[in-house]
């Protein structure tokens, strides 16, 4: 069944502006889909349907009054539940924040609203963004719309599943070590992790500040461009943010020099390997040069990532101390030594593991053995990549080394779980942009191609992704009727 909920964001805005359908009609179509599939997918933690409906009516009213409805006028957007939304509960999928209602909007939310977007609700994730499957959400896991027995990827699993299933037209995720690209790959949608600093992090609830970025998950490259141009830019509330030139869709492709990262292919499952190689053949069809390279410091990337991310997490999550955020404990039972830990025991297992590892790598005696070495590796890796980008425009490989897997497969073995992030953490460590583009299926399960570029070279990612998207023309919508 295809309907208005199937449209892409740019088609929605055009349709509403031209009067082909009203914002309310399109909104109702999205809600109908949501009501039909949400009980099976569990993409959302909180829905704000009534407010969203009234926003759709406002858009229709503006159009009648000949007022500007904005670049995203009427488009239904879902937001990962670690991005602050004024007046809408923001839980980070944690019990610690189950009643937290932010009093302000993140900068990205402000910008979406100013451009007429409709915020439908908050999407599921692994608690505080720590995980690759949504199984570490304190509420419930999200299911993969392509096969409900499989994980949707994570940590922005709700963001990936909801867009793939048509529960919202686009979504925002956040990416600390692959959390946008992993679910984009597992759900056959497009996900972009921007260059560090391109998008303001103000209002993103911190997990590992030096690594994370907010980015879009969409059903087309064109929609990614649309959202990026709205959320990017310098923000006085985030001093790491920078201004950047807008990106655009170009119909003519430059002849790019592209290198496949051989190590990432070698470490992948056979089905993934085959699909990536056959997708990369298309690069020569669209006029690009293809080469193969190795990254010297690749072996150290994942250990370095987990050291840095855990260290930053242990420090960031110290704020949940039962004073600034916490619960109302009866004063009679108050004991100094357990006042904090009584509340912090509500963190999930994975969050606790990372806090403990973080405390370990930062403690005296281990600080120079792990943390400093990890930071050093990060610099070496970035220098190595920048050197490669002098020769090549883009580096490619599989987004995920494996196909989506079944629930419970890796949950008891943290290292097995961490290893699925091996291809994606590189971009976060180096602060470079990376996109995941759907390029195929194996046994009905999606496979994504990852493309990386030098800092602030998002335009190159978009150019080649758009050309490849036209050349491959892959199915984006699962059958969930």
């Amino acid at each position, binding site marked *: 069944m295809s309907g208005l909920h199937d449209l892409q964001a740019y088609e929605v805005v055009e349709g509403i502006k031209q009067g082909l359908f009203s914002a309310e009609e399109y909104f109702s179509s999205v809600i109908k889909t949501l009501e039909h599939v949400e009980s099976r997918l569990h993409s959302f933690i909180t829905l704000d349907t009534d407010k969203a409906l009234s926003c759709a009516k406002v858009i229709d009213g503006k159009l009648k009054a000949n007022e500007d409805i904005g670049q995203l006028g009427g488009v239904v957007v879902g937001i990962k539940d670690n991005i602050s939304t*004024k*007046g809408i509960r923001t839980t980070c999928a944690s019990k610690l924040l*189950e009643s937290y*209602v932010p*009093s*302000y909007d993140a900068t990205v939310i402000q910008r979406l609203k100013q451009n007429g977007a409709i915020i439908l609700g908050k999407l599921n994730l692994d608690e505080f963004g720590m995980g690759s499957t949504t199984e570490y959400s304190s509420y419930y896991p999200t299911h993969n719309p392509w096969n409900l027995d499989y994980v949707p990827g994570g940590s922005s699993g709700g963001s990936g599943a909801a867009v793939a299933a048509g529960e919202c037209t686009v979504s925002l995720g956040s990416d600390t070590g692959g959390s946008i690209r992993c679910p984009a790959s597992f759900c056959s949608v497009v996900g972009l992790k921007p260059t*560090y*600093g391109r998008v303001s992090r103000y209002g993103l609830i911190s997990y590992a500040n*030096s690594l994370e970025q907010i980015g879009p998950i969409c059903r087309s490259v064109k929609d990614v461009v649309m959202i990026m141009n709205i959320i990017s830019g310098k923000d*006085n509330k985030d*001093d*790491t943010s920078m201004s950047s030139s807008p990106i655009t869709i170009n119909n003519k492709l430059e002849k790019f020099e592209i290198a496949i990262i051989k190590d990432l292919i070698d470490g992948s499952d056979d089905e993934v390997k085959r699909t990536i190689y056959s997708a990369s053949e298309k690069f020569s069809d669209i006029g690009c040069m293809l080469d193969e390279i190795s990254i010297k410091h690749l*072996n*150290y990337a994942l*250990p*370095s990532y*987990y*050291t840095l991310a855990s260290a930053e997490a*242990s420090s960031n999550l110290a704020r949940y*101390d039962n004073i600034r*955020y*916490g*619960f*109302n*404990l009866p004063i009679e039972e108050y004991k100094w030594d*357990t006042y*904090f*830990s*009584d*509340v*912090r*025991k509500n963190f999930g*297992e994975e969050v*606790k*593991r990372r*806090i*403990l*590892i973080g*405390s*370990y*790598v930062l*403690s005296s005696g281990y600080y*120079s*053995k*792990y943390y*400093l*070495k*990890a*930071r*050093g*590796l*990060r*610099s*070496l890796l970035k*220098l190595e990549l920048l050197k490669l980008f002098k020769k090549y425009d883009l580096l490619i490989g599989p987004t995920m080394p494996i196909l989506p897997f079944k629930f419970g497969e890796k949950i008891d*073995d*943290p*290292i097995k779980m*961490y290893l699925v992030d091996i291809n994606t953490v590189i971009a976060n460590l180096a*602060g470079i942009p990376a996109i995941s583009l759907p390029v195929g299926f194996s046994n009905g399960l999606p496979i994504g191609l990852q493309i990386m570029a030098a800092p602030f070279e998002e335009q190159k990612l978009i150019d080649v992704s758009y050309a490849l998207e036209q050349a491959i023309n892959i199915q984006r919508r699962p059958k969930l009727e």
Partner: protein
Amino acid sequence: MISKDEIEYLAKISKISLTEDEAKKFPEQLDKTIEYIDILDELASDHSIILDLQEIKFDELRDDVVRMSGALPITRNLTEEGFLKGPKMK
């Protein structure tokens, strides 16, 4: 090998209490993780290689200017005495 005592100490400084189940399985899990990141020790200890990736100079920071935040007033959780009150723990 990370000992049970070490984990207890880490939990104490992190202000976290572990459930019985966690106390049982964490030593092995954390041990594996630390073993995994041990490869970092192979890297040379040349501190000169540490570069700040996102260098922000002090004079590039914005000036402090007081203005209204536009945030919602935090009245929903105020007690009669005017204190902020957290939700009940389940």
